[in-house]
């Protein structure tokens, strides 16, 4: 079954466009960034991060599961808080679930702002929160066997940078 969940909101007060999507099929980040950039005429900077499945360590496949009632609402709340904190013009968060293979994009975050620093920091901050607080569970297949990926201390340390 090919399903995608999307949450899109342009808030009334601040003129910020938030676009949050959960996808179950492969996506092309480049195809999203063009329209996202074009939707913010007058921006001063845009910062995009794309995360892909690493091919190292004999990983054959990665599976991301999630809990639908919490995952997208949590990502939407994260996007709104981040956009407000950094005064963004727009924030795009796209995340895969399901079965992925090395080289496939897992996540794409793009922040548009009037100034460079806000765009870069907002993207960095969003990634740190996605890594440690979003409702995703990962397991990877190595040598034909599945292994659950446990939380890493590094992720919490990264999160602590944002107070």
């Amino acid at each position, binding site marked *: 079954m090919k399903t995608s969940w999307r949450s899109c909101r342009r808030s009334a007060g601040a003129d910020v466009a938030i676009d949050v999507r959960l996808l179950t099929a492969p996506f092309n980040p480049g195809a999203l960034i063009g329209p996202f950039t074009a939707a913010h005429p007058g921006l001063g900077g845009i910062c995009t991060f794309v995360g892909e499945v690493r091919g190292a360590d004999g990983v054959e496949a990665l599976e991301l599961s*999630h809990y639908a009632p*919490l995952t997208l609402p949590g990502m939407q709340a994260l996007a709104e808080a981040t956009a407000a904190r950094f005064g963004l013009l727009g924030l795009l968060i796209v995340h895969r679930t399901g079965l992925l293979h090395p080289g496939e994009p897992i*996540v794409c975050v793009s922040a548009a702002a009037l100034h460079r620093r806000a765009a870069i920091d907002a993207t960095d901050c969003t990634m740190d929160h996605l890594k440690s607080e979003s409702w995703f*569970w990962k397991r990877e297949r190595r040598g034909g066997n599945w292994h659950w990926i446990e939380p*890493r201390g590094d992720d919490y340390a990264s999160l602590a940078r944002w107070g």
Partner: protein
Amino acid sequence: MAAQLVFLGRLQDVAGAPSLPVSPGSLETVLAALPTELALAVLDERVRIALNGELITARGGIVLADEDELAFLPPVSGG
């Protein structure tokens, strides 16, 4: 007529399935009817729980009604 337990992450392996129908009743009664290994796994203090899609902080006093969904969420492994 049943309530539903949902297991995320590695808890699915312990449960042997992503979800399990159970008879409605108090959480204590429901857990007592589960295999010991599974009951111990979901009682881990790092496991969060959500009732009908809402995270809850206090486990005391939970009573599952017909069609309720109680999810057990182990620590996330990151996006």
